[in-house]
């Protein structure tokens, strides 16, 4: 298990043996394969937090976000949305960094 990224209430780890990620947020654990993780990140990206913050409509205080294939749902307040967005985006940056490291090692081995 490798810790990818963490915030105050959550963390994302990579399980190499299972080829998947585990996201833990406020005590709940969500297992995601790579495809589900990317789909979840794409879903999270579509929420315009700035717009939600500026809006007076009360329904914007709570969001229901389905995980891949609607197996489970995340019900998040606006504050939690900000944190989960940060958690997922941060994890993706770290994963991309890992890809760059792998790429550099591969290239060095080719020389």
């Amino acid at each position, binding site marked *: 298990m*490798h810790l990818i990224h963490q915030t105050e209430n959550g963390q994302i780890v*990579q399980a*190499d043996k299972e*080829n*998947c*990620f585990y996201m833990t947020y406020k005590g709940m654990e969500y297992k995601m394969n*790579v*495809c589900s993780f*990317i*789909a979840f*990140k*794409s879903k999270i990206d579509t929420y315009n937090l700035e717009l939600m913050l500026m809006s007076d409509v009360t329904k914007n205080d709570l969001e229901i976000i389905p995980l891949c294939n609607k197996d489970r749902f995340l019900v998040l307040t606006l504050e939690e949305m900000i944190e989960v967005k940060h958690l997922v985006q941060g994890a*993706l940056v770290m*994963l*991309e960094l*890992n*890809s760059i490291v*792998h*790429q550099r090692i591969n290239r060095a081995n080719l020389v």
Partner: protein
Amino acid sequence: MKDLLRQRVAVQDSIIKKLNNQVKLEAQASAAYLAMAAWCDQNAYDHSAKFFYEQSSEEREHMMKLFHYISDMGGIAVSPAVAGSQSEFSSLKEVFETALENEINVTESINQIVSDCRKNNDFATENFMQWFVKEQVEEEFVIRRILDYFEMLGEDPKSLLMIDERVGGVSYGE
């Protein structure tokens, strides 16, 4: 630590986002051409209507080509929401001028993707996008040439009829 991301996805997230934007742009272009075809049909410009129906199908094919590529590379292809298209025009010339503006926007967007691919060393996507670069040269040429006819012949009814008849015959020869 395994590189799970690279094992599953062959294209970077930032490029996938741009390709999805391009999917949307192609879908919008397809819808816009359909509206132009309808206007031409209503005003009895039969050849122009046929031209725009074909253009609309072509743009959809472009969209699907991008859509499949995103999926094949392991990305999430997003089915786009298309905004309303302009359906009222003051003249046939305006229709073609709007079409050229659309094509120029699409070209700019494609060029931007190619530029980003180069910056990110994404040679596969750059190679894939080259087909679109070539296609845009043709698309812009054809509409520009049709607009030349308006300059040459004017816009009186007889000229418009002549232009309409010539629309289907314009092609780009390299």
